[in-house]
């Protein structure tokens, strides 16, 4: 894919390194700003001082900044911090999942939501909710993983040829899988009792409300492991963009790499979907912007996608709970609301520069 925007041929290596630092700095500022604003925003008035004081207090540094009010401390540590950390973890997982998926499909349009992996995970999770399936206390996550893995394998088996995926085939496969998963979801909803039906509907719209530490300890390790493995594989993923045959000639064990990456994508997507519902387009938008800013090399792409995905999600979550006074909008709705037009713009730009993706 030719990246949109003007190309500066004279850009030197040091200039691009400088811009790389700039991009990372911007992403980090956005993330930290988002975390801070998110911590102080809400029904209960909490100041930035109190946030810092409360964190220092937990680290054993009692300062004058520490909030005297028990309620403030509780609000931060029981409600806001888990939610913020969950938002960061989910955003990072989706962004890295998207980047990985694009790498093995050799296609910048591959995204867990677009190709149906999120719906597959959603179907798995709803089955777990309705039938009360439990594996070691995390049945929803496990079933989401299985659903996501099956969907990824299916897309992969159907849509790929010669190491690349035609955009049309990819999207059509996505349509088929989404349709199937939606039908499955409808059937599960039909079987469900009122309580679990409501739970599924709201969960599907996506929300980070009610995130708790016990969920975070599941998601964050998955994210760390997934990102770590992705980082180790980054160079091989670069080589894979030469196509499967060329990559094999260059000593990449393509089959092994594919299997690992598919499992990673399913793991990361399921981790996000299981606790936050279907949140579309993050895996598309974040890697795309990072690629435009830093180029497609996967090592920087993955690392910066983690920061970018986390930042995007923290801000999106902040919007969902502040846009309408006293209510929590579904975050999946919000990301789709922004992501849809973004996707549109991407297509439009592509059409202008090279007559479309086909």
């Amino acid at each position, binding site marked *: *894919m*030719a*990246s949109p925007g003007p*190309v500066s*041929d*004279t*850009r*030197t*290596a040091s200039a691009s390194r400088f811009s790389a630092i700039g991009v990372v700095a911007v992403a980090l500022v956005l993330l930290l700003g988002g975390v801070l604003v998110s911590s102080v925003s809400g029904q209960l008035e909490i100041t930035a001082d109190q946030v810092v004081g409360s964190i220092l207090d937990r680290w054993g540094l009692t300062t004058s900044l520490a909030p005297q009010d028990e309620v403030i401390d509780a609000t931060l540590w029981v409600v806001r911090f888990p939610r913020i950390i969950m938002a960061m973890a989910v955003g990072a997982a989706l962004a890295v999942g998207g980047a990985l998926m*694009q790498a093995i499909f*050799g*296609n*910048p349009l591959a995204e867990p939501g677009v190709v149906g992996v999120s719906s597959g995970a959603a179907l798995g999770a709803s089955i777990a909710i309705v039938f009360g399936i439990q594996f070691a206390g995390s049945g929803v996550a496990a079933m989401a993983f299985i659903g996501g893995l099956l969907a990824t394998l299916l897309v992969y088996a159907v849509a790929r040829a010669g190491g*690349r995926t035609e955009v049309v085939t990819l999207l059509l496969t996505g349509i088929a899988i989404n349709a199937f998963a939606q039908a499955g979801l409808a059937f599960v909803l039909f079987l469900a009792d009122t309580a679990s039906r409501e739970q599924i509907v709201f969960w599907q719209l996506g929300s980070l409300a009610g995130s708790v530490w016990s969920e975070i300890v599941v998601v964050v390790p998955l994210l760390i492991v997934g990102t770590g493995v992705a980082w180790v594989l980054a*160079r*091989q993923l*670069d*080589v*894979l*963009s*030469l*196509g499967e*045959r*060329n990559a*094999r*000639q*260059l*000593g*990449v*064990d*393509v089959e092994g790499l594919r299997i690992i990456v598919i499992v990673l994508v399913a793991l990361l997507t399921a981790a996000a979907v299981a606790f936050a519902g279907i949140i579309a387009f993050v895996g598309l938008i974040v890697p795309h912007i990072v*690629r435009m800013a830093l*180029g*497609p*090399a996967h090592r920087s792409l993955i690392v910066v996608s983690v920061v970018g995905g986390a930042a995007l999600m923290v801000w999106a979550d902040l919007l969902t709970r502040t846009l309408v006074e006293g209510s929590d909008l579904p975050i999946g709705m919000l990301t789709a609301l922004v992501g849809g037009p973004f996707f549109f713009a991407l297509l439009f730009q592509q059409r202008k520069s090279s007559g479309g993706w086909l």
Partner: protein
Amino acid sequence: MSSPLVKMRGAGVERGKRTILSDVSLEVNSGEVLVLVGPNGAGKSTLLATLAGEIVPARGEAIIFGRPSSSYRPKELARLRSVLLQSNDVSFPFRVRQVVQMGRNPWSGTEYEELDGQVVDQAMADVGVADLEQRRFNELSGGERARVSLARVLAQHTDLLLLDEPTAALDLHHQDRVMQLVRSRATDSRGVVVVLHDLSLAAAYADRVVLISRGEIHAVGTPREVLTAEKLSEIYGVALRVMDSPDGHPMVIPVRATH
């Protein structure tokens, strides 16, 4: 003479029920430029893939650097031979230098890794793409892409080079430049196998020519032995003339009706 880089004995390759190569015996020696010629669909690319160890023959054997091709792991092979395929798309907007750098992948984690920068510079200079270094690969012309891909293959720095139509998209100047480079790479312990469609180019640069047709080797020998009007006309199914070019190489020209 040292042992051959690759040795095929009675090798046969099938895809589905179709026989692509049958009973091919061939040696690639160090110090030589071996050129594969033949009509479309003759099996040249399959033969190249078999020499590369990518395809393991169903019958017979392919011995690469003394070991059967089936006994290698991808990384081991990648340090012994490099392959230029016909299609060289890159999925994401990598820059030229990054693409050439990918050729160093087999050496990552070895002592040769420190040479990466130097080897990449040299490969780009050899092929004449140094000034494209910071351009995006996908924005290059077909000929430029072909040269960048060749630079990537050279950066892999192996003793055996296998090139599938490296000159197909190139202008006259670059065709000769690439073939001269290929020639210079076939020294001492190193050998080159090239698939070419331009028979005159083959005649000018080959040590030996292999004429393939319908999955079988029809003739092997020096350009003068193999590229004869009689043999070529039979294999290609059109009338061809072989003449001497002013610089003494055979030159192949179709017999065309005058208008």
